[in-house]
């Protein structure tokens, strides 16, 4: 009995080693850079990291990233605006961070290439919400004062869940143990493709089984609508609260948003209070080619191209000209 268990365990171990090797050889795993909070309390990536971000079981999407000296994914090492050039900042979450594309062809780079004498400074960081973005602008106000104008990407449904800034729990993802586990590429890969989900969900399942917790009955449409309305109002309130704390220059800052995700009340508020915004909805929904990736919700090559064109056209119309 124990002889066979030993043999099976040995084979499992050897197969594990062989798979680790295969994952490394074919570079199937997604490499995430390490994070930190700088002396101003802004969460960023540790500078000077370069690797490949891989999406999908079979490398369906690969992008090379380069974390610059400032802590963001960009071709520009340092963010030092010049007087004789135009600087544009794009601030946002993983959509702006753009790990799904080579950093040399990022959204910012596509914008930059289509504008004359312009540098695009990218401030994308996965998980950033509106509070993170405004805190960043506030912490680096001397830099943003020098930048000619900025686009702030917000997703109404995700980025307005809190009304004040606190350093996020994301930093705890980079504990020494998690850093060590990240060295086992097979585990990283399996986790990313969801193959470990059944195992990770097991404790919760057992607890539910033991405590005999039953799922609540499904909510009625009316209850769901009410709930959605409450959430919309809370997000709108958070938006106003954050802007009260971190006011922005309405002439220099433009919101990049998808109006189909926003409440009417929110959009009307922007209009009535002279906040500028650039709506991504129509170009993404009218796109013939898929504007998002297969495996996740992020923009595909064609989606990014369309948004870059939109930003370029808007910039030419409202700022450059």
């Amino acid at each position: 009995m124990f002889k066979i268990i030993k043999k099976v365990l040995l084979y499992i171990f050897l197969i594990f080693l062989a798979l680790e090797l295969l994952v490394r050889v074919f570079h199937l795993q997604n490499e995430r850079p390490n994070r930190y909070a700088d002396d101003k309390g802004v969460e960023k990536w540790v500078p000077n990291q370069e690797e490949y971000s891989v999406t999908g079981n079979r490398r369906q999407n690969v992008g090379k990233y380069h974390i610059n000296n400032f802590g963001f994914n960009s071709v520009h090492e340092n963010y030092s605006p010049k007087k004789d050039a135009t600087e544009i900042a794009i601030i946002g979450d993983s959509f702006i961070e753009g790990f799904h594309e080579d950093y040399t062809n990022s959204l910012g780079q596509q914008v930059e290439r289509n504008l004359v004498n312009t540098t695009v400074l990218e401030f994308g960081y996965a998980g950033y919400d509106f509070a993170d973005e405004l805190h960043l602008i506030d912490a680096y106000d001397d830099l943003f004062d020098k930048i000619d104008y900025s686009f702030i990407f917000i997703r109404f449904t995700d980025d307005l869940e809190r009304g004040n800034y606190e350093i996020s729990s994301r930093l705890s993802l980079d504990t020494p143990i998690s850093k060590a586990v990240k060295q086992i590429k097979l585990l990283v890969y399996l986790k990313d493709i969801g193959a470990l989900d059944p195992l990770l969900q097991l404790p919760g399942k057992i607890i539910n089984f033991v405590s005999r917790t039953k799922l609540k009955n499904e909510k009625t449409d009316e209850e769901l609508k009410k709930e959605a309305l409450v959430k919309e109002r809370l997000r709108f309130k958070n938006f106003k609260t954050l802007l009260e704390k971190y006011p922005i220059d309405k002439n220099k800052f433009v919101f990049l948003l998808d109006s189909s995700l926003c409440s009417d009340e929110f959009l009307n508020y922007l209009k009535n209070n002279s906040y500028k915004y650039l709506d991504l909805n129509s170009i993404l929904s009218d796109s013939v080619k898929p504007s998002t990736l297969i495996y996740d919700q992020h923009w595909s090559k064609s989606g990014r191209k369309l948004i870059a064109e939109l930003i370029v056209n808007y910039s030419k119309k409202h700022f450059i000209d």
Partner: protein
Amino acid sequence: MLFNSIDFAIFLPVVFFLYWTLFKKNLKAQNIFIVFASYLFYGWWDWRFLALIIFSTLLDFTIGNFLKNENRVLRRKLLLSVSVIINLGFLAFFKYYNFFVESFVDAYTFLGSTINVSSLNIILPVGISFYTFQTLSYTIDVYRKELEPTKDLIAFSAFVCFFPQLVAGPIERATNLLPQISNKRSFNQNQIIDGLKLMLWGFFKKLVIADSLSPIVNDIFNNSSTYSSTTLIIGAVFFAFQIYGDFSGYSDIAIGTSKLFGVELMSNFKFPYFSRNIGEFWRRWHISLSTWFRDYLYIPLGGSRGTKFKNIRNVFIIFIVSGFWHGANWTFIVWGIIHALLFLPSFIFNNNRKFTNEINLLNSFKEFIINSLRIFQTFVFVTIGWVFFRSESISQAFLYLKRMFFDFSSSLYVHPSGYRMVDYYLILISFIVFEYFIRNNERNPFYFKNKFLRFFLYVVMVFAIILFYDDGVDRSFIYFQF
């Protein structure tokens, strides 16, 4: 509990460990433990239907013992009829009630009358078709005096509910399984290792072949009216491999799991897509069901004895009943009729058993060409049959085939989620080539002598399972619905 679930991944090692440690020394305790584990396995899905299995077990156990002490022909027939009527009655109610009601209403409507009969919202107990046939085989064998009835209720219960094959077969005969359960099993390391290897092969077929083709097949069949002929061909061929991977994968996992407990189940699939005619196909596909029908329906009907007309009638009956066994839908009956029609020529000309020797394509160039064409022809026929099997209705199947054959058009098919299609073509080709190499070793797919080659194959299988893992896919087995 699904074989491909985390629940089973925990259940199996625990049961295995307890079975060979705590309950090893006492056969009775081991069998009680099998019954307990099997009820847990089944009850995990819906414990209420355990009552059906228990009832069926008690019924056939009792009738079997009555039959032992009864020599009067009429009484014996009566006892057998009670078992057949009650067992098939349950099956008819749970599986076919709504079908009969709806067909009855349709027939009335067709004749110009209307009738108001409401159908019931009946849940089909998983595996009912399988364990019903298994218990029936026991009673019939005892009735025929081919099997001595058991007096051990626990062993009989374990025979009926043995968890590896409870929900989707292989449909075991009491003559094979019951003696193994009634006698002491010994811990055999080689048997256990063979079981684990077979399980790996089964998981590969299920997770890599069946599950990865499933979204493509669903997309093509659900939107068949909008797709070109070439895409419909892909849909039909992929379904042929999906159902094969799904069901033979399940069977291999079941046979492999049984080996872990010292039990040998019968083979259910022997590389059916290498068959050179339909007769050979049915000796290689779902063997436990086709031999069940042969022994308990075809031969009692007269088999191939008697007039040619009777023979042909028997062939049609067995194929139609086989189709109907799969589900309460006319599509399955048409599928059965198609196979009867395909089988008929070789049956009439007495060459349905022409191909009983092993397949070897590489003997000579001439043999390669001839046998490849035969295999291809059989596969095409079988795949046309699968279109009926997979379609929601007969009209959908006919439209599918019409577009596929008569409104020819071609276009590049794009995966519903946008994945690379070439991955699926490559994995299918590799699968067919590998199946050819192991074509005589359905119970030992990793039979190669070279240790390193075997290890390489294990790694490739596990790697492929990971590469094609899709957490969004429905992982249940197709044959659970039957």
